C-alpha cells in the first residue's frame, strides 16, 4: 500500500500526487516511470515519475484524466492509499552535456518532460523548452519549467497564453534561430509524429518518450511494442525513449487506439455510475 501525501489539481483535468515510495524515490532517474494499480479491480497504468524526494521518500506523479483509471486516480485524496506502485521502470534518459537541448512537451507530456529538463540543465546544457496546450488553463508546470530552462516558450492553440500556434511552430522558430544539438519530445503520439518530422528536416538528433499501452512493464507481455527502424522494441524495458526519427508513429497511434471502443464504453458507464452516486 502506497500512501498519498498530497494531491492537487494543476488544471481542470490534471492532478499532481505526491506518493510515499522510498525505494523508488531513491533509485529513480530522469525518464523513469512507475506502474500503479489503484485497487483490486484496477488496471495497471504507467505514469512518469515527475519528481522525487529521497529524504522524504516520496515520488511525484502528474496524471491527466483520460479514462476510467486516470479518473479514479485523480479523484483520490491525501491520506488515501494506492494498492500497488512498482518501479522505477524503463531506461533512464541519457543525460550529458551536448550544448543546446530543445525540449518540447505537449499536453500532459509536459509532466514527464520536467525531470528531463531539470537533468539536462543540471548537466550544464543550454535548455530551451517549448510547452504547448489547447488553452491557458491546460498549461501546467509553467513556473518549474521556467526555473530550469534558459528560455521557455509557451504555445496555445488559441493564443490565450504565450504564442498562438502549435508546438512545432515554436520548435521551428528556435531551430531557425540557433544551433540545436539535441531535441527531446514528449506528448500525444500525434504531436510527437509531427515534432519528429520537424527536427528531421533539420537533421537534429531527437529522442521521443513513447507512451504506449502497457500491462506488466517488465518485458513480459509485449503489449507496449512499437517498430523502431523496422525492429520491434518493447517500450517498457528498452524505452521509453527512442530515436524519434525511426519510430513508426502511425503504428503506435493504431496500437494506442486498440482498446478505444472497450475503454470508452467502460468510461461512459463509469461516469454515469459515479454521477448516479453523486445525485443520490
Amino acid at each position, binding site marked *: 500500500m502506497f500512501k498519498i501525501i498530497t494531491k492537487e489539481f494543476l488544471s481542470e483535468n490534471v492532478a499532481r500526487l505526491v506518493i510515499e515510495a522510498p*525505494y*523508488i524515490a531513491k533509485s529513480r532517474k530522469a525518464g523513469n516511470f512507475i506502474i500503479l494499480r489503484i485497487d483490486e479491480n484496477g*488496471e495497471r497504468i504507467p505514469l512518469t515519475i515527475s519528481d522525487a524526494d529521497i529524504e522524504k521518500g516520496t515520488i511525484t506523479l502528474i496524471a491527466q484524466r483520460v479514462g476510467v483509471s486516470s479518473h479514479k486516480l485523480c479523484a483520490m485524496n491525501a491520506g488515501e492509499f494506492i494498492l500497488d506502485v512498482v518501479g522505477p521502470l524503463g531506461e533512464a534518459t541519457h543525460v550529458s552535456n551536448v550544448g543546446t537541448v530543445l525540449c518540447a512537451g505537449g499536453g500532459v507530456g509536459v509532466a514527464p518532460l520536467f525531470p528531463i529538463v531539470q537533468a539536462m540543465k543540471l548537466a550544464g546544457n543550454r535548455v530551451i523548452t517549448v510547452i504547448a496546450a489547447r488553452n491557458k488553463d491546460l498549461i501546467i508546470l509553467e513556473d518549474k519549467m521556467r526555473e530550469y530552462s534558459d528560455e521557455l516558450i509557451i504555445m496555445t492553440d488559441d493564443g490565450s497564453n504565450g504564442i498562438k500556434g502549435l508546438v512545432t511552430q515554436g520548435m521551428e522558430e528556435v531551430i531557425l534561430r540557433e544551433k540545436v544539438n539535441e531535441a527531446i519530445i514528449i506528448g500525444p503520439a500525434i504531436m510527437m509524429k509531427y515534432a519528429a518530422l520537424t527536427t528531421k528536416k533539420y537533421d537534429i538528433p531527437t529522442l521521443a518518450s513513447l507512451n504506449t499501452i502497457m500491462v506488466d512493464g517488465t518485458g513480459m507481455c509485449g503489449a507496449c*511494442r512499437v517498430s523502431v527502424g523496422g525492429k520491434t522494441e518493447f517500450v517498457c*524495458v528498452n524505452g521509453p525513449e527512442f530515436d524519434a526519427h525511426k519510430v513508426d508513429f502511425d503504428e503506435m497511434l493504431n*496500437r494506442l487506439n486498440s482498446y478505444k471502443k472497450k475503454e470508452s464504453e467502460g468510461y461512459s458507464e463509469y461516469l454515469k455510475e459515479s454521477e448516479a452516486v453523486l445525485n443520490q
Partner: protein
Amino acid sequence: MESELDKEYYKKERKADWRDKLRKDIKSKDRTDIVRVHMPEADPNERNKSNIEVNGGLTLEMAIKESSRCLDCVSPTCIIGCPVGTNIPKFVKYLELGDVLGAAKVLKENNSLPAICGRVCPQEIQCEAQCIYVKKLSKEGSAIGYLERFAADYEREHGEASIPTLAEPNGIKMAIIGSGPAGLTVAGELAKFGYDVTVFEALHDLGGVLKYGIPEFRLPKAIVDFEINNIKKMGVKFVTNFIVGKTATIDDLKNEGYEAFFIASGAGLPNFMNIPGENFSGVQSANEFLTRVNLMGGADNKFDTPVHTGKNVVIVGGGNTAMDSVRTAKRMGAERAIIVYRRSVEEMPARAEEIKHAIEEGIEFINLTSPIEYFADENGMVNKMRVQKMELGEPDASGRRRPVVIEGSEYDIDVDSVVIAVGVSPNPIIQRSMPELEVTKWNTIKVDENMMTSISGLFAGGDIVRGGATVILAMGDGRKAGQGMHAYVQSKVLAES
C-alpha cells in the same frame, strides 16, 4: 533423468512389514488386470463456457483401487522419471493402505507443491513413462499424477496440511528473486534450515506463471494461494511490487544484510515471429492475453482491464501456452478457437492431456500450417491472416521432422484476434543490471552443479537457467539451490568465526 536410483535404499524400504503384507494381499496378476482409473472430467460442452476445473479429482475408492495397480516393483523405475525423485511406490502403497495423510507426507519429503505437480506435471513423459506397465507390460502406466493430486488435495481439504519442522531461527538473511515455483521451493527449503527468507516479486501477485499463465480451469488459483500461505506460515516474507535490478539492485540488498541470493526470474520474454502486420491491434502474445485474463480479470466486467477476443480467434503455436490460450479464448465465447501449428499433432510440445481436452472442447486444429502475414481494417485492427501449408521434411537437430513450406499453398483466415504462442526467452532485467554475470548466448544465466552463478553467493534456477521448461524442473533446481545456498552460507559463517 537426473536422479539415479539408490537401489539399496528402496529395497530396504520395500521390505518393511506393512509393504510386504500389502504385496501379498493381491496377486500381481490380479493387479495388472485392473484397468487404469479414469479421471472424472467436467462435461466438455459445459466446461468450455466456464472456469470450473476440468479434472474433478479421484474419489477415495478410485484412489485406493488405482494404487493397488502399482506392483511395488523391486526396481521402481518410475522414480527415475521424476525430476525430484519422489518415492513413488512408498506414497502409492500408503494410499493403498488407506493412509492418505501418510502418503501426502511422503510426497512432501521431496516436493513442497504436490497438489500443483499432480495437476501440471507432464507425467506421461516423466514418472508414468518409466513405469513398468509402460516399459514392460505395454499397458497404461500407474496413474501417479492423479494419485499425487489426490493425496495432496485430501490433506488440504481435511485441514491436515502441516508445515515442516523448522530449525531454530539463525537470523541470517536470504533473498529470493521471483515467486514462481523455483523461488517458492527455495523459500521453503531455506526456511526449514532456519534462515530469515524474503521473496521479492515484480508483479502485484505471487506465484509467477502458476498465477498469470496457467488458467484457473487447469490449476485453481486457490490451490496456489494455499501453498503460498503455507510458506508464509514457515516465516517467509513476501514483498510484491519489487523489481530486483530496478527498485533496488542486488548490491543494495547486500548492503541491507542479505547473505545469499537466488534468482528465479523466469522466462517471461515473449517471442514474436517478425512477420508483416504482427504489430496490428488485436495481435497479442500469449503472455499478454493470459495475463490480462488470469492476473487482471480481463474476462470479467467487474475489472477495469480490457482484453481482445472475438468470434474467430487464432492461436499460433503448439505448446502448453498455446493450448491454455486457445481454451481460454473458447471460454470467453469464441465460436472458432483455432490452433495454427507448423508441425503435426504428434510433434506438439503440449501435454497430451491438454490436447485431448482441447479437442473435446471443440478447439479447431489447423496443423502443418504457418502464418506469413496479418491484415487489418481501417482502424489498424487485425481482421485477416495469411497462412501457408507445410510438409514434414528431414529431422532437425531436435530429432523432430523439420516443416518445409509447400510453395503456392497460401490462403487467408478471417480473424478477430490473434494470440502468438511461439515460445519465450529469459527475462533480461537482472542480467542487464549486472553486466558481470555470465550468461549463455540465449541469455540464460550460467550456473555450476550447485546452481551457483559466476558470482559468489548468487544462485539461480528454473526457467531463467533452462529457458522455458517445466514446473517440476524449476522446483528441482530450487531444492538443489537451497542445499547449495545453505552450504555456501555455512562455510562462510565458519570461515568468519
